[in-house]
């Protein structure tokens, strides 16, 4: 545990991927199994505990510190693990030498129950330094944020074992922490782990946003054009060992969508968009959110918001990988595969007939009108299915965001790197003489603009509500967002989807910002949606 805490500390304060890789490689070479494998799992985000949660930590902390002081501290530090690491009462009996190994810690947290986790955790926190407490809480609650992604880890492992990174990626989801068989193979002490038939997530292929020059030499025959759907990207996996639905980040979301897994009659791995669908009619993203993050949906919810998938690609047909086939071929394979299933909730993404650039522009204009989709996808017919974001293969062409002028009303400090800056802004629109908050935004500005905004907030504060500062209603921002939905949760009666800064209108008088009615006029009604 001591070495792991040191590792995290070093990674946190070391800049540069190469330097970080050197630190991790050194750790791998000098740390025994299974500790090092658990550390890899922690860094790659594949370590999960059933009962060691943020809330567990918070509850223990609130038994030891005034809630008001905790809230102010958390707001300032901007991060739970570190807040608790510093706030936890220091005990004189801090027995540094008696700290258990990382594997023992992991094992104990995996074996503990809902009732015993608190005592176990408190005991450890009592015996640790602030830095070790930070490491332990990070370990338990995931999201280490030390600037090392799962992808980086795979690259480091590949170079550690002197193998191609694609080999590591291919078996990654078929091996489990503490990765002893993987490490043994990388160190040349054992054969490559056999993962055939495992229900594993396969890294997905991603697109680039279309930029101005991309259409210069565009030839229609080379491209498949589809709608870009407004749901979430998923991967459906069915093997003889079972089936599962994965999010694009590899999270298993099967339990939230049991209806999607029904009716699969043959094996395969397919790629598509998860949506709420009434037959072929696509419902809003808002309705999909009713079902996301629900561990087990009620019958009522399933009936009210039935889920479906619009499929657009296939990675494995039966037991055979087709990723090295061109898209044009995979499309045919996907059509065949879909015919074999007994699943009316699975659909195929229609391809759009486009024979010229004019027709493409025309389709884009129509897609922008169609509220059921977000824009177009352009995919090279010859593209192989390559994990990651290969250049020049797939493009997304999103419809233009909607824009309104709103007035900044409140500001709050950001988190992490931004914890010293006022970077989270609540903005409002006019209803008569009154401003009503319509959303929050914390992105879309440059670092320089952030400094100016921060400075502006400090000089224009008129009130405080705990961590939130109320500012003079003087600054207008042009807010971009993807959609507006009616909402009963907000006084304004609306909710914006993904609002962000588009421009700061230092010049514009607040009185000339948009009215709430103007914003409401941009609402997409579900009735206007069609598949």
């Amino acid at each position, binding site marked *: 545990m001591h070495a792991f805490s040191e590792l995290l500390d070093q990674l*946190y*304060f*070391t*800049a540069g991927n190469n330097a970080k890789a050197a630190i991790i490689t050194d750790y791998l070479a000098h740390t025994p199994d299974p500790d090092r494998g658990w550390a890899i799992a922690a860094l790659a985000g594949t370590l999960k505990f059933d009962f060691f949660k943020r809330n567990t930590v918070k509850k223990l902390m609130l038994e030891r*510190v*005034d809630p*008001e*002081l905790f809230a*102010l*501290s958390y707001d*300032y*530090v*901007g*991060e739970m693990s*570190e*807040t608790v690491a*510093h*706030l936890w009462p*220091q005990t004189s009996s801090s027995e540094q030498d008696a700290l258990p190994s990382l594997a023992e810690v992991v094992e104990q947290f995996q074996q503990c129950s809902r009732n015993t986790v608190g005592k176990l955790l408190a005991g450890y926190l009592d015996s640790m330094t602030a830095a070790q407490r*930070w490491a332990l809480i990070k370990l338990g609650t995931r999201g280490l944020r030390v600037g090392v992604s799962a992808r980086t880890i795979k690259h480091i492992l590949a170079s550690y074992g002197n193998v191609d990174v694609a080999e590591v990626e291919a078996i990654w989801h078929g091996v489990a922490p503490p990765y002893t068989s993987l490490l043994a193979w990388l160190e040349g002490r054992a054969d490559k782990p056999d993962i055939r038939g495992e229900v594993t997530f396969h890294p997905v292929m991603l697109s680039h946003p279309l930029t101005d020059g991309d259409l210069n030499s565009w030839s229609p025959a080379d491209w498949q054009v589809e709608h870009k759907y407004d749901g979430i990207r998923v991967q459906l996996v069915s093997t003889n060992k079972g089936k599962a639905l994965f999010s694009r980040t590899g999270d298993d979301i099967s339990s939230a969508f049991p209806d999607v897994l029904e009716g699969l009659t043959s094996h395969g791995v397919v790629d598509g968009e998860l949506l709420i669908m009434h037959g072929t009619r696509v419902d809003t993203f808002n309705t999909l959110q009713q079902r996301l993050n629900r561990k087990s949906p009620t019958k009522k919810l399933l009936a009210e918001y039935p889920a479906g998938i619009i499929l657009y690609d296939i990675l494995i047909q039966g037991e055979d990988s087709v990723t090295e086939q061109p898209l044009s071929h995979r499309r045919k394979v996907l059509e065949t595969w879909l015919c074999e299933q007994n699943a009316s909730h699975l659909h195929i993404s229609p391809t759009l007939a486009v024979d010229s650039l004019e027709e493409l522009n025309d389709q884009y204009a129509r897609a922008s009108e169609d509220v059921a989709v977000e824009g177009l996808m352009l995919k090279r017919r010859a593209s192989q299915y390559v994990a990651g974001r290969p250049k020049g293969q797939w493009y997304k062409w999103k419809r233009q965001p909607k824009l309104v002028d709103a007035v900044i009303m409140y500001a709050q400090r950001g988190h*992490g*790197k931004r*914890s*010293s800056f006022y970077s989270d802004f609540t903005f409002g629109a006019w209803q008569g003489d009154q401003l009503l908050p319509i959303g929050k935004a914390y992105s879309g500005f440059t670092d320089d603009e952030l400094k100016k905004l921060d*400075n502006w907030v*400090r000089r224009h504060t008129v009130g*405080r509500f*705990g961590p939130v500062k109320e500012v003079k209603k003087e600054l207008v921002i042009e807010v971009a967002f993807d959609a507006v939905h009616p909402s009963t949760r907000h006084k304004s009666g609306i909710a914006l989807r993904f609002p962000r800064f588009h421009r700061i209108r230092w010049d514009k008088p607040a009185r000339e910002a948009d009215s709430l009615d103007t914003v409401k006029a941009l609402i997409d009604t579900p009735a206007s949606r069609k598949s």
Partner: protein
Amino acid sequence: MLFTATGSDNGGQVHPSEWITVNDTGLYCQPADTYIDPMVPVAQAIITHGHADHARAGHQRVYATPTTIRIMTTRYGDDMAEQHYPLTYRESVSLGDPDDPVKLTFYPAGHIAGSAQALLEYRGGRIVISGDYKRRPDPTCEPFEVVPCDVFITEATFGLPVFRHPPIEREIQKLLHSLSVFPQRCHLVGTYALGKCQRVILALRDAGYHKPVYLHGALLKLCELYQTLGVSLGTLIPVSEVEDKQSLAGEVVLAPPSALADRWSRALPDPRTVMASGWMQIRARARQRQAELPLIISDHCDWPELLQTLREVDAPEVWVTHGREDALIYQASQMGYQAKALSLLRFDDEDEPA
């Protein structure tokens, strides 16, 4: 804005809230027509200590401790004020109307050399403006002295319970350990020029480090001043006088924080960036500073010391300024004191010498 009178005419006493106000220029004592640590030039100013967010040039008359005045003339030149009146600790002077005077007395604040708390007494009311202060031992200044009063104005730079400063000896050990692990790297330590710089050098000497310490030009004058004030800092060499910069591998170089990531540091051999500040306790802050080795060394109180001070001073009323007021106000109220925020315009948090 005038604070509402909370304890007026209490047996002939006049509560400080009736004669101490805050306006755009700063904290103002009406019957003495004097500002305390004003940010713009004024006719008459009381200066608690020499840091730039308290001591500015251009006032007509300045009251400060003799050391603070030497610091100010070192930084701003001999004409930093038209007249200055050095006042040693525990010596008093009358300000304002001789028939209805305000009495000013300085007491040690333990923050940096010359730092003082200002006690103002008027018609039986007593207010202590503590400026910046700390409670840890500091060989460069007299320790903080508890002064009874009706109103205690306290800073809250580290006014959150997450702030618990470790002993300076432990932090200096981290630096020495790093020197042994990375003997080929120049250890470039960011320190504020006044106070922090000298304290870090002294702590290095106390830990048995007697090699020369190399200095960025911006730190020279104040180190010389400290030496003439009788603080022995050992051998100091300006980096500008080192012909072969490669010879600084494995040496300690002190520079102001702004110089850490500046072009200036590029000449140094594989510098390891070290930063000495109370802010370094918060990881995100350390990373913002791009510090590879953060040292938590502060010239302010940590949270337990702030609370200890409130208890020891035991003033019925506490005004909180300069930092994270909310938590300290809340805690002081919990402890039974009347507490409120005093909004004084200061520099941005991050540039404060902390």
